[in-house]
């Protein structure tokens, strides 16, 4: 099966700076790939190369069978792209802006109007359709950018921070939209927001200093956390005693203690790598008759995995 996006050994050097350094990955239809990384990691630069804005220093990009170097215009026609910051012509209205982009995309007449109606309805732009874009709020501007990207119903959708600057409701809407479109499209989004990876992505790539440091499913990413499968519980008993008992359990690496907002002690049982300590913890609770007010299994802390992966690479380089 051929991938919708094939990126091989992509590099971009700005003078001595290797902004992107030998990045390779594929995205199939039905995939939503999350691009994670610290600021300046090369996420945007990679997207700019895939969409044909920046010329790669080395490497190849192929989108829907079209090679970037050989047929850039065909490649661009297959992609819907939301650039970083969602730029748009401020003196235009969202309607005239969408008409302009639609015409360039080859949409005409009734078909163009139908697509605009469809997209405007999906993204809820009706209220501002005839207002100048420069007068719109940040959230609306971002949505105009998203509307422009999906107007021609592209096979490949690339969005640089699609939910940046949106309020929680708007974020939810855009994520729902991405999930709805995911079935038939290959989608790449970049984000700072780690919860977004769990919310919409089927795969994640962590990139730092221009290199891919992790590639896998969001579950695999969580699996890297030492908190993955950890058990957090609040016990109304002598904490030191409980702690000692828990540490003695077989699958347990360590037990950490933190006070919650109400001042009660919460214990987190950290598993040994690959172990699931929940049954043992439950057994201990029942055997000793502790009264437990709270008990849940942690999914894994993405921010901590993210920090680990991206700072390790920095340490390794220096």
């Amino acid at each position: 099966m051929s991938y919708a996006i094939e990126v091989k050994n992509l590099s971009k050097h700005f003078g001595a700076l290797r902004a992107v350094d030998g990045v390779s990955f594929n995205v199939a239809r039905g995939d939503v790939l999350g691009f994670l990384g610290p600021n300046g990691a090369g996420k945007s630069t990679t997207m700019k190369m895939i969409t044909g804005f920046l010329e790669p220093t080395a490497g190849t990009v192929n989108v829907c069978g079209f090679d970037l170097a050989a047929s850039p215009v065909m490649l661009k026609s297959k992609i819907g792209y939301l650039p970083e910051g969602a730029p748009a012509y401020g003196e235009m209205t969202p309607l005239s802006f969408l008409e302009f982009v639609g015409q360039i995309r080859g949409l005409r007449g009734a078909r163009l109007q139908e697509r605009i109606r469809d997209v405007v309805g999906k993204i809820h732009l009706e209220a501002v359709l005839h207002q100048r874009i420069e007068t719109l709020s940040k959230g609306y501007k971002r949505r105009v950018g998203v509307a422009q990207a999906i107007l021609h119903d592209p096979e490949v959708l690339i969005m640089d921070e699609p939910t940046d600057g949106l309020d929680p409701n708007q974020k939810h809407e855009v994520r729902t939209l991405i999930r709805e479109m995911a079935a038939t499209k290959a989608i790449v989004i970049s984000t700072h927001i780690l919860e977004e990876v769990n919310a919409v992505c089927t795969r994640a790539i962590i990139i730092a200093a221009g290199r891919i440091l992790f590639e896998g499913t969001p579950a695999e990413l969580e699996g890297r956390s030492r908190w993955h499968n950890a058990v957090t519980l609040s016990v109304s008993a002598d904490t030191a005693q409980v702690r000692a008992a828990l540490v003695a359990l077989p699958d347990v690496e360590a037990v950490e203690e933190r006070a919650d907002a109400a001042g009660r002690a919460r214990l987190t049982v950290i598993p040994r790598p690959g172990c699931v300590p929940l049954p043992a913890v439950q057994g201990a609770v029942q055997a000793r008759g502790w009264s437990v007010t709270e008990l849940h299994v942690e999914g894994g802390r993405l921010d901590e995995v993210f920090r680990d992966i991206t700072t390790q690479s920095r340490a390794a380089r220096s």
Partner: protein
Amino acid sequence: MSNVLTIFKRELRAYFATPVAYVFIIIFLFLTGIFTFYLGAFYERDQADLEPFFRFHPWLYLFLIPAIAMRLWSEERKTGTIELLMTLPITLWDAVLGKFLAAWCFTAIALLLTFPMWITVNYLGDPDNVVIVAGYLGSLLMAGGFLAIGSCISATTKNQVIAFVVSVVICFCFIFSGTRIVLDFFSGWAPQAVVDVISSFSFIAHFESIKKGVLDVRDVVYFATLIAFWLYANTLVIQNRKAS
């Protein structure tokens, strides 16, 4: 070709979406009037032609055309819309031509609005209207040359003020290279061939015959070549600097 047209329409509409267009047109009409009737001594000459009207066009264009051209690419670079534009399925030439033609068309509109001048001269006397049409065409052609320079310079910077100032300086060189001051400076020591080359680069020299109503093929070729050269340079600049 349809992409050029789409971009052309968007750009032309952008001029009229802000007060820039109206301010420009009013100032242009006002200044052409002043120059023609006071400096050009339109009445005193007692001749039924528009020579005093066309005579000052190079100097008017020197400041007004860079003002039209400065936003063409600088603004796209500053606001980041250049990334949007250049990732749409168009070629570089589509974008450069569409924008240039829009600016040129805008200039043509401003120029056409000087028609009361033509009515006046026809009312007062019996001018050779073919000569006047040739003058208008030549003036428009020269405006195209100024615009191509301005468009290219505008692509080099995010700052419209810098684009304006640098364009004015370059356009000034193109005008000034045909004046006595420059030519006398060179004719003292440089071979005649060099002097001729310098003078042949001048807008003034090529506009000289045009404003008298003689639309010489050589002058047309000169301006056409000039426009093509600067637009080509424009594509190179964008290709290399669009992201910086």
